[in-house]
């Protein structure tokens, strides 16, 4: 398939790996920011193709994972109401709150629907005038334009029974927070390709300057990621630290102005709590006052719910790139995709879930020898 097959080509992959090996003189720790990138790395076994001197740690870019437990409990409280049709992206459905997940609430009779776009909710709202239709608006800058468009359209079309529960997060403050941490190990970033499609990459220039780290805006196919690694390593080996764009077929410096204008009309920046990480100043969006009639948090009187995470879970350290999923003693044991204990296991895009889905709870050799024995990994 065009635009896919050429980015999943074994010969090109080998050429890139060879070039990385050729220029590499010392070990480097790189972080891929996005959950989608983590997914590709583990799905295609890219980390096993790369030389061992390159360590890939996995970033906080899984929006489902970092949505705070308090917000998920709020969503569950709203979704459980008999006068509500609750709409969500699919991978949010399995994320456990304090007592249940949306799939369980659905099995108990709640009207919960998977949508591919928040705009679909407007159709549902029009068809169900006696119900309140609520969309769980999560995500990074990538999903912000569509989510903003849904309330913008709802206001324009006078659809009054539609609201969104906003838990938007922003990438640059999270990256800065990782770099400020005394535990930080990250020396270079594979930047968020689709976030930059919307926002452009100029937002990352101050970060490279201030913390002296290279940031290579990178795509999501295996060849994109290998090329991203090559460009980052090339900068590190040369002592450089600038923003570079590997994902040129989609991303430019200034991004999509129309989308940005829409975001700014509907949302304003606010402090946001990240699951597993904690509160990061100015790291989220909330609805502007003008759109308060479509703000589910205002419309539904939900008391603050006090929540507690599992003491076993180290997802905060995984999200910051300090630890790997298999460093956690609960990984693949107490904590599995069926019984997730924390942020990075709850969504398919979380680092722990990706490791688990692709068998990393079972140890196997780095070589691609099919006959290597698999043994249970000891904690």
């Amino acid at each position, binding site marked *: *398939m065009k635009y*896919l097959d050429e980015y*999943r*080509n*074994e010969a090109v*992959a*080998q050429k890139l790996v060879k070039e990385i090996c050729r220029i590499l003189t010392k070990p480097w720790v790189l972080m891929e920011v996005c959950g*989608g990138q983590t997914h590709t790395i*583990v*799905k*295609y*076994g*890219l980390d*096993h*193709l790369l030389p061992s001197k390159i360590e890939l740690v996995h970033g906080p870019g899984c*929006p*489902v994972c970092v949505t705070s437990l308090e917000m998920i409990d709020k969503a569950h409280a709203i979704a459980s109401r008999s006068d509500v049709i609750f709409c969500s*992206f*699919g*991978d*949010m*459905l*399995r994320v456990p709150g304090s007592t249940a997940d949306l*799939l*369980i609430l*659905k*099995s*108990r009779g709640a009207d919960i629907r*998977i949508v*591919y776009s928040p705009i679909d909710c407007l159709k549902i709202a029009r068809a169900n005038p006696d119900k309140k239709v609520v969309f769980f608006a*999560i*995500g*990074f800058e*990538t*999903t912000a334009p569509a989510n903003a468009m849904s309330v913008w359209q709802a206001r324009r079309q006078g659809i009054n029974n539609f609201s969104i529960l906003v838990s938007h997060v922003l990438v640059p403050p999270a990256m800065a927070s990782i770099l400020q941490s005394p535990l930080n190990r990250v020396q270079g970033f594979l930047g968020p390709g*689709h976030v930059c499609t919307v926002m452009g990459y100029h937002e990352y220039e101050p970060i490279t300057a201030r913390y002296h780290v290279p940031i290579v805006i990178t795509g999501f196919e*295996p*060849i994109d990621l290998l090329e991203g690694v090559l460009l980052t390593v090339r900068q590190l080996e040369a002592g450089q630290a600038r923003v570079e764009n590997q994902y040129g077929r989609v991303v430019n410096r200034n991004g999509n102005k129309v989308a940005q204008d829409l975001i700014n009309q509907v949302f304003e920046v606010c402090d946001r709590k990240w699951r597993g990480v904690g509160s990061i100043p100015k790291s989220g969006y909330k609805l502007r006052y003008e759109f308060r009639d479509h703000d589910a948090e205002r419309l539904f009187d939900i008391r603050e719910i006090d929540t507690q995470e599992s003491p076993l879970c180290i997802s905060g350290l995984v999200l910051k790139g300090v630890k790997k999923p298999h460093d956690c003693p609960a990984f693949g044991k107490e904590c*599995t*995709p*069926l*019984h997730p204990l924390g942020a990075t296991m709850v*969504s*398919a*895009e979380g680092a722990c879930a990706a490791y*688990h*889905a*692709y*068998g*990393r709870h*079972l140890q*196997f050799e780095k070589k*691609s020898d*099919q*006959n*290597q*024995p*698999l043994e249970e990994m000891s904690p």
Partner: protein
Amino acid sequence: MSSNKRVVAELDAQSLGLGVLDGCCPIPISEHKEIVLAHGSGGKLSQQLIQTMVLPQFQNELLEPLHDGAIFSLNGTKLAFSTDSFVVNPIFFPGGDIGELAINGTVNDLAMCGARPLYLSAAFILEEGFAMADFWRVIQSMQRAAKTAGVSLVTGDTKVVDRGKGDKIFINTSGVGLIDAEVSIYPGRAQIGDKIIVSGLIAAHGIAIMSVREGLEFESEIASDTAPLNGLVAAILSVSKDIHVLRDPTRGGITSTLAEIAEKAKVGIHLDEASIPISEPVKGACEILGLDPLYVANEGKLLAFVQPDQAQAVLAAMRDHPLGREAAMIGEVVAGHPGYIMMKTRIGGVRVVDMLSGEQLPRIC
């Protein structure tokens, strides 16, 4: 608890007739208080439900292999017996409908035992208000499918439930078939060295259903692959009677089926991603929907485990059959990593391919 208190507790329970002393069993699944959709997805939760709640209660040697059907002998004749229920939304979809699925599903379960399907039963649960014209369409489609597969529908049942207590129509079919004496096909027979052949392009059925359900329109319509596989199985058996395993990878897709076989036969499976046949439209739809085609349902495909020296002949025979034109060798059974599937990825990496944990859900970005 002190011993005194325990006696009191037991006496209380006894007087209340709770049967503590009789060994009243707790429910084997404690994590879920109610059935969730993923219990029916063919992945880990389905497996857990069957293996902890059902199997221990009915243990017997015919049930134990967990094959698509039970295989047994009566008066020296080897028979296969299988049952399957069909619930699908929408009931009419590109390439087929629930009636055709219901016939082909049980025909295929029997064929996967190496049997020649003969007789089928059909039981309908109909919802009050279900359009007569739609029921007629389903029945006609079942009639055509039975004729195509060469089976007779010989017994049946009909029940109607209140409006809202069902979803238009649910169908159960059961069937019996005859197995040749030399044929012995079951999941536990997968042997090291066996070549694994898939009979054609994967994942069409699941994507066809999903595209209608979600109202997605693609440039070219993706049709379900529903088809009776008994003809293809006959073609395979005409080349080699010594086929080790046949399975039709329905819900959960080819990986869930292969993972089950690996576990059952305690062997490792090695797959080569690049050799797994998949059509361009299905591949594109999977990319858009964020689904992995390896986990998407098929309704007219089979996986065959064949001795290496017979693999080429079987592959050729499959390709000569209309339902096997795109058949391909996708992997083999290996000694390492028993119980698990390893796959060489398209770009040369290696990873474990695991059974699905819950339902496959579309990803956010």
